[in-house]
Each structure stands twice: as C-alpha cells, then as structure tokens.
C-alpha cells in the first residue's frame, strides 16, 4: 500500500494534487456545468492527454515534439473508423451506389471497403489499434532519430514536418480517409448511442478516470529508476551515456509512451465530439498542445491538465465575447505566460501559493493528527 502511495500517487504532495484534480473533474465540474459545457470540458480534457504526454516527453525527457497532434489524430482516427463502419450498415446506407461502405467512399467512387479498413469492424482490434498504431509510428520515428543522435530543435522541426505530411496525406486521400471533412456523423458503439446526454456523462467520467490513471502511470514511471535517468539525461545527456546507459533507448521509450497517451486522448475526442477531423493532426494543434503543457508548467503532470483547461476556457470565452478580436487576447495570453511565468501555472503556484498551502497543511495536521506515513525518499525535484 505504501509503495502504491509513494510510487503511483507521488507521495503526499502528489496525492493532494490528484485528489484536488479528481474533486475538480468529478464533483465541481458536473455540479457547476450543464451537459453542453460539461461535454466541452470533456473535449478539453482529451487535449490534456496530449499535454500530459508532452510533460513526459518534453518536460522530463527534454525532447520537444511538435508533432504530438499526429498521435492524437491517429488515435482518434482509429476510433472513428470503427464507429464509421458501424454507422454505415447496409440498411442506413441503402441509397448509396455501394451500400455498406462509409458515405465519403461512395462519393469518391470507391466500390469496395479498402483492405486496411476491414479489421476495424472489430471493437477489440480498434481499441488495440488506438494504442499500437501510434506507438509503432513513434517507435519508428524515434528510433531513426535518436539512434543517430538527432535532438533538440532539429527533432522538433522534423516532427513538425511529419505532422504536415500526414495532414496532406489524409486530406489528399479522401476516398480512404474522408479528406478535409474528416470522418463525420458517428453514432453508436455496438448499438450504444454516443450522442445522448447520458452517454455524454458516462464518456466524460470515463475520460476523467482514464486521465487520472494516465497521470498515475506517469508518476509511477517517474518515481522509478527510469524517471531519475530521464531527468539526468535531460540535464547532462553525455554523462548518462558515459555511465554506460543507452540514452537512445530511454528516449525512444519516453517518446512512445507520450504517443500512446496522446492517442488515448484522440480516441476519447472522437467519442465525445462525435467526429474526427484532420484539423486535429496538423501543425497548429500540435503547437497548441505544446502551449497547453507550457502554460501548465511543462514538468507538472497535473499542471498540464489545468493549463489545457485554462487555455481552452480562454479560447471559448474570448471568442464568444469578441468573435472577431479574440485572437489578440489569445496571443497576449501566450506571450504573457512565457514572459512573466516561465514555469507556467505550476511556477505560479510554487512562487505565490505553495507556502500558504503548506502552512495551511501544517495547521490542519495539528488539528487532525493523521498517522505518520513514511517520508518520500527520492521525490522528484519539481522546482527545477
């Protein structure tokens, strides 16, 4: 139990953070918001997966990926392909030239379901593909790069190029992918309608549970020897290499984990929004995901979630109030955070609120003395 507490939850500090986040997601939001807004928060929380992935890859691994949208997008597309096939049964597509295939294929004069679509009739396969396809791609990309010691800005721009290429491919092969429209009009999973209000509630909570689970998994990874090596690599890569570790393998592993996490977010996006669009793959969303992580504070897993929520809330609120001028406010927000709070929300917390919260905790402890837990040994230095 103690091992679980220290490794998965991240000790006392981590447990409090998680508890606050859980209360925020599972209690405050559903009580405060109607189903439309809650669904919107659910959509934002899917981006938080990508941001959490980036905290691992960028904040701890020191690898800035500008192609995180690629993995988010592939995860989303794998999910959407399953849903689209279920929505395209021969009865409801009877008016098509070829009934039983997705509508956009019919519009593009395709008369047989392409081979790579076939396995997506199976939910199990599709769920596996959500994780495995992005991981495989991430593995190939990162192996090619890190084995040759490509890093830094070059890696960033190459990932950006991959995002550009994938967008062009998806948009260009519209008979196979739905093109610029994306895969739209998704309805059911095994007959369960994902568009009803009750389904939206269930998906929202599932999304929250998955997000917390992913954060705990990341905590576990970071509290292990791997996590300490990762930090050491980020700060002095050569020394780790000279100590006999294969730096590339650790980076490949981290990058693949980040890809898998983003992909889960993509799949949840498809389920909650009801369609998947190539506009989630490209360069712009990928940079936005980096911004979410940066505003959260790039080495704070929980901060990334708040960063994502803050930026997206700002986007929605600004654009509803000032439909033609909101970009000014968004731009100012990004610049302001980078200039004034280089460590994002987490830094803001550390500077202004941490002492206050700790004093409160000490006072609370005096009032309600809890049984002593073993001190956390190698806690990761979050202030770095």
């Amino acid at each position: 139990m103690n091992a679980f507490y220290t490794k998965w939850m991240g000790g006392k500090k981590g447990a409090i953070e998680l508890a606050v986040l859980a209360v925020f997601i599972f209690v405050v939001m559903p009580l405060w918001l109607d189903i439309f807004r809650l669904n919107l928060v659910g959509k934002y929380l899917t981006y938080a997966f990508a941001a959490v992935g980036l905290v691992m890859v960028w904040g701890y691994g020191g690898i800035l990926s500008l192609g995180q949208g690629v993995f988010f997008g592939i995860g989303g597309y794998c999910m959407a392909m399953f849903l689209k096939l279920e929505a395209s049964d021969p009865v409801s597509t009877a008016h098509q030239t070829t009934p039983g295939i997705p509508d956009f294929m019919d519009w593009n004069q395709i008369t047989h379901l392409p081979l790579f679509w076939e396995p997506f009739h199976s939910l199990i396969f599709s769920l596996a593909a959500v994780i495995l396809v992005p991981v495989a791609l991430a593995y190939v990309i990162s192996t090619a790069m890190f084995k040759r010691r490509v890093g830094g800005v070059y890696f960033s721009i190459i990932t950006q190029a991959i995002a550009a290429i994938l967008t062009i491919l998806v948009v260009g092969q519209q008979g196979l992918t739905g093109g610029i429209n994306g895969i739209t009009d998704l309805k059911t999973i095994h007959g369960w309608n994902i568009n009803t209000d009750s389904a939206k509630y269930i998906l929202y909570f599932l999304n929250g549970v998955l997000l917390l689970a992913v954060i705990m998994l990341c905590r576990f990874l970071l509290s292990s020897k791997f996590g300490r090596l990762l930090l050491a690599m980020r700060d002095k890569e050569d020394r780790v290499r000279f100590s006999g570790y294969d730096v590339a393998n650790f980076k490949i592993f981290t990058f693949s984990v980040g890809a898998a996490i983003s992909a889960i977010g993509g799949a949840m996006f498809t389920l909650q929004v009801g369609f998947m669009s190539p506009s989630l793959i490209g360069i712009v969303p990928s940079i936005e995901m980096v911004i979410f992580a940066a505003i959260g504070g790039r080495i704070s897993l929980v901060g990334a979630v708040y960063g994502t929520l803050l930026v997206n809330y700002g986007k929605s609120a600004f654009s509803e109030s000032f439909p033609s001028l909101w970009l000014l406010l968004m731009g100012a927000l990004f610049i302001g955070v980078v200039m004034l709070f280089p460590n994002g929300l987490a830094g803001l917390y550390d500077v202004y609120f941490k002492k206050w919260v700790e004093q409160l905790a000490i006072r609370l402890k005096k009032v309600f003395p809890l049984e002593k837990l073993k001190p956390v040994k190698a806690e990761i230095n979050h202030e770095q």
Partner: protein
Amino acid sequence: MGGYSISDLWSILVMQGFSGLSLFSVLLLMALGLAIIFGQMGVINMAHGEFMTIGAYTIYMFSKVTEQYFPSLMPYYFVVAIFAAFGFAFAAGYLVEYLLIRHLYKRPLDTLLATWGLSLIMQQIFRTVFGAREVSATLPDWLMGSWKPTPDIDIPLNGLFVMAISIVVTAAVVLFLYRSSWGLKVRATTQNRVMAGSVGINTRKVDRVTFAVGCGIAGIAGATFTTIASTGPTSGSLYIVDTFLVVVFGGAGSVIGTVSSAFSIAQAQSILTFFLTNAMGKVVTLLTIIIILMMRPEGLFTSKVRK
C-alpha cells in the same frame, strides 16, 4: 509522351526547368531571413510568415497611394515599395526583438511559443487594419506577362523578377555576413558570445540588428511574392512549413546550405508535380526530405560551431 512533337517536348523541358528555378528562388527568399535568425541566434521565429505579410501589405499600400495620387509613377513604385517593405519589416523586427525576444535568449524553445502568440496578434492586426478579405496590388505592366524567346516558350516575367530579387538578396546577405564589420561581429557572437563580449562587441546590439535584418528580408520576400501569390491576413501561414523545412534541410548557420536545400527541394517538387499529381508530388518531396534528414540529421551543410 506519344503524339507530341520534338519541339513541343523541348519547350516544355525549358519551361519546366524554369518553373523549378522559379520555385527555388521563392523558397530561397522565404528561407534566407529565417536561416539568419534561426541559424545565427537559435531563435525559432514562428511569426516569420507574418513579417512576410508586412511586406505584402506594404506593396498593396504603395500601389493604392500611387494609383490615387501619382498615376504616372505606376511603373516605378514597385522598386521603391520593396525597399519600404524591408524598412517596415526591419523596424517591426527591431521592436519585437527589443520588447520580446531579448528576454528569451536563454530559453530558445520559449521563443517558439512567444512568437506563435505574436503571429496570432499580427494576423488579427492585419485583419483589423486591412479587412478580412484578400487584397490585390495593381502590379506594373512590366512585371506581368511573359518573355517569348521562341513562339512555343513562355518564360514568366514575374518568375524572372523573383529570381533576380533572390540573387540580389542572397548576395547582399553574403556580403553582409562575410565582408562587413557587422557581419564579423555577428559571426563572432554566434561562435562565442562571451568571448565576443569580452573583446568589446555589443552582443545585445548585434542580436537586435541580426533579428531585424532577418525580418527585413522576410519583408522583401513577402513584397516579391505579391507578384505570384495572394495577400491576406493569413497569407504568411501558407509559407511557414516550407520555410522551416528549407532551413533545417540545409543545415542551420550556413547560407550555402540554405541555397542548396532550396534548390534540391524546388527541383524535386517541380519535377514530381509534373509527373505525379500536384498533391502527391508534394507528399513524395516531404517524405524524401524526412528520409534524408534521418540519414543526415544535421542537414546538408553544417557549421562546425554548433553543439
């Protein structure tokens, strides 16, 4: 290619060669400014495209003013406007460096986020000032139309113009970097900032001028592209990916690298587009770049000072 005469094929070959060269000039012009900033200073300027848009709108403003008040000067305004485009973009770059970039030199990846925010703001300013619609500058007649060396061959004049400008700008950049005292200071600062400072070079000022010059070149590029492409608030975003690719492919900090990378990308894309479809041509080019970058991760040409 049955059914075509030899002379047909010959003229296509000539024109196709030219279209590759013209794309090369476009890419080179886009990338030069960024290469200077990114290569020499390690700053990732995501607002590079918007500095190009400044240049494009400068041409538009000059064209409107000239048309209104000095119609007789219409054939000549373009040349003046290009200098003005450099001036405006230089000034904007100088200001941005002073207000924003200089605070972020120790955190190069943060410049990416800050300049991304900057690009959003600039796009919105363009939209507010010039309207959301595209605009079109009236170009002088000598820039439009084509030169016909033989009856079958049409060489676009605007393509020749873009080529000429990019040759001039490249030459100017080389002279600036390798033949001027400013260039010496820039190179010294790049290679060893502390040492450069200790021999009395004002490295802050060098940074500011380098950044501003890079932006100014983007302004020239944007001005020149009004002859071949659209002018609107988001026009700059069309170029940003290609621009970064050219710089990375060439290897940062090397003018010759940028030139050769622009050349190979342009020729590949131009030839592939002719034989494949337009969209597939682009995809194959991008994939090839990635594969080459995986084999030569530091780009075609690398400067030795980088770590």
